[in-house]
């Protein structure tokens, strides 16, 4: 009995400390994951906790479980619209990117560690894939908004590249242990079953789950549990059949998440906590598992590996992989830089250990150290590098809060809260009048809250700065409405004029008219095209909000897009005077 209590106390304490420490991580600018890892290491055999934990199979179990939950959560939050710009680039990175990185890094490791090439390649394969947990959490908590092309490519890549890494690790383990059995056709078959079964089971499982969710009447808190348990079943069953469970569970999440039903909103809130718990638990266990002094023994090797991976192998593989997609140079650089390593490499490093590959403890320690360096260096610079490389776009105008109220089975009402900012269009207006002006008859003011009290509205009511206004409005009006409540943005006449340009132009206007208005030349066949079409053609890739194109001495920008990927508003930036001091 005492041992159970001690165990529970310990587990509770570790989690408790981690939760408290999470408030610290934002202030220190450290990735939260790293913090969990350090808490685990501190509690471990060489830290203050002194817990001796070398049970790799428990580590493996927790790791797999946590990764499945994190990937499921990532899938639930990935909008299918983002596939429009990022599916193919991400697919190339998730396959070729992993192979290319592994080959380059393997060559380097063979030379550096002076080991057989197959062991070096195994090590490279272990750290070859980016980590979904790290990418999702670091991109979402970075405080900057990345342009959709970069963000979606990174997210989909990280969700989809684990099967490739797992395959490579499996292959290399086989080459090392049973060199006679290894043959190329066998590996090709393995790859096809992993990917094919994973994709099939994921989509099918997700579809069934989504249908179930739409029909079942459950207590609110149970929907998330249904999804998690369903996701785990998909994960485990796919793995058992020889497919990639990671890919399957990510896709299942994607399918469920994109079928909006009355549970979605609530499920996401619960999943938030579950994914957090999964990350904390996994990194704590992995921190416990490692022996920090061993890491230091191989510190130089790990550092050299990490540097080569971050500065040479990944950039080269990414650059080659993205060549056909005409990404801008700064986008390629940023995607290269945010090749975050996380739990996946550590979990993968446990495979060879459990299979009894010689020298595999070295692999584990080096892989672990590479992950730490990656999280420390790349993880901490996610926002800085984004600003520096110019892949950020201005923050979206959004409601302060939103709620979904379900009316019956298939109709939803979106309730959104806005706060009146100083200098906003809404200031001094009657709420109903304002809503009628901004949204016609599509939206309705439901309540106005002033100083924490519900305001009784009359014909004489005028909105004041700081009022909370609750509106019932369709989703597509969320952003336009937010602009009515946003304050005068400092010294800009319209929000983000410095980024998008002073003027707003109509994307459907013939490009020739722009050329005529300002006196510059276009290619003759471009004159009749709509501005948006001309823009798309010159860009050479599907546009995303924030894309810029120099034309004459002007810059055309994409200000807004709709869900189908059409440009709905463009900006025009005039040349500026060279300013002398």
């Amino acid at each position: 009995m005492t041992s159970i209590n001690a165990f529970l106390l310990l587990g509770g304490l570790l989690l408790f400390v981690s939760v408290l420490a999470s408030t610290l991580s934002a202030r220190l600018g450290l990735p939260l994951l790293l913090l969990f890892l350090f808490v685990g290491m501190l509690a471990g055999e060489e830290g203050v906790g002194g817990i001796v934990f070398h049970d790799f199979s428990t580590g493996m179990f927790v790791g797999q479980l946590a990764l499945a939950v994190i990937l499921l959560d990532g899938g639930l939050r990935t909008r299918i619209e983002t596939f429009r710009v990022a599916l193919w680039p991400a697919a190339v990175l998730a396959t070729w990117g992993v192979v290319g990185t592994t080959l380059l890094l393997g060559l380097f490791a063979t030379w550096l560690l002076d080991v057989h090439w197959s062991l070096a390649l195994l090590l490279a394969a272990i750290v070859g894939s980016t980590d979904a947990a790290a990418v999702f959490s670091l991109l979402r908590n970075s405080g900057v908004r990345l342009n959709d092309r970069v963000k979606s490519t990174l997210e989909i890549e990280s969700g989809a590249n684990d099967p490739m890494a797992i395959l490579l690790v499996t292959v290399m383990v086989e080459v090392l242990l049973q060199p006679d059995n290894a043959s190329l056709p066998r590996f090709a078959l393995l790859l096809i079953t992993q990917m094919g079964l994973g994709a099939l089971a994921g989509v099918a499982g997700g579809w069934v789950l989504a249908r179930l969710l739409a029909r079942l009447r459950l207590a609110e808190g149970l929907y998330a549990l249904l999804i998690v348990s369903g996701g785990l079943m998909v994960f485990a069953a796919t793995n058992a059949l020889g497919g990639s469970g990671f890919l399957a569970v990510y896709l299942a999440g994607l399918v469920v998440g994109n079928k909006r039903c009355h549970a979605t909103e609530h499920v996401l809130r619960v999943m938030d906590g579950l994914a957090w718990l999964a990350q904390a638990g996994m990194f704590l266990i992995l921190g416990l598992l490692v022996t920090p002094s061993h890491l230091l023994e191989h510190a130089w090797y790990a550092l050299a590996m990490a540097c080569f991976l971050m500065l040479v192998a990944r950039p080269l593989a990414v650059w080659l992989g993205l060549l056909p997609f005409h990404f801008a140079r700064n986008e390629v650089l940023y995607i290269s830089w945010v090749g975050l390593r996380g739990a996946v490499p550590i979990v993968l490093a446990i495979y060879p250990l459990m299979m009894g590959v010689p020298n595999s403890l070295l692999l584990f320690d080096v892989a672990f150290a590479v992950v730490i360096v990656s999280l420390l260096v790349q993880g901490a610079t996610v926002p800085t590098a984004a600003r520096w490389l110019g892949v950020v776009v201005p923050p979206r105008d959004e409601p302060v809060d939103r709620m979904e109220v379900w009316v019956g089975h298939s109709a939803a009402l979106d309730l959104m809260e806005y706060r009146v900012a100083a200098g906003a269009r809404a200031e001094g207006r009657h709420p109903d009048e304002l809503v009628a002006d901004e949204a016609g008859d599509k939206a309705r003011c439901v309540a106005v809250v002033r100083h924490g009290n519900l305001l009784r509205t009359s014909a004489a009511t005028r909105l004041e700065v700081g009022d909370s206004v609750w509106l019932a409005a369709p989703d597509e009006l969320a952003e336009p409405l937010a602009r009515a409540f946003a304050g005068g943005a400092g010294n800009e006449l319209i929000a983000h004029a410095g980024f998008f340009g002073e003027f707003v132009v109509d994307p459907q206007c013939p490009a020739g008219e722009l050329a005529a208005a300002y006196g510059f030349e276009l290619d003759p066949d471009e004159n009749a095209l709509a501005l948006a079409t001309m823009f798309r053609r010159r860009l050479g890739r599907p546009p995303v909000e924030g894309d810029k194109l120099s034309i004459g001495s002007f810059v055309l920008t994409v200000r807004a897009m709709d869900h189908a990927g059409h440009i709905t508003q463009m900006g025009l930036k005039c040349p500026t005077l060279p300013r002398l001091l």
Partner: protein
Amino acid sequence: MSLIAQLLPPANVVIDLDASSKKRVFEQAGLLFENQQNIARSVVFDSLFSRERLGSTGLGQGIAIPHGRIKGLAEATGAFFRLATPVQFDAPDNRPVDMLFVLLVPEQANETHLQLLSELAQMFSDRNFRDTLHQAPDAASIHALFANWGPHAADERSATA
């Protein structure tokens, strides 16, 4: 003296103009340029209006800078209008417009001419400048405001923001 003031003759500052629509404002602008600078009013009107098809020249916060290229014009020239009542201008923030700076540039517009636009936009981004324009009692004091405007005040504030 600022670049903008050089191309704004004192007689081209009009306050309390009565105009009921964007079109009427442009007609008034044409009339003014015809009387003051001998540019045919229809040429001015057509040039301003065709630029407007591309998208409103409203900048937000009640400001617009309609502009166009004029054949045969030797030097860029401008006019400032403060309206008695704001007019609907399809500005990006949906606010009606009550202050306009109309800019006409030669047909062979060079880099400097185009830079005038961003210069104007920057000028009007200065909230204090907008407020003083609103409160100015007569055309002469508005002209003086344009003449004395320096980018430094706005620059300093945006540097600290």
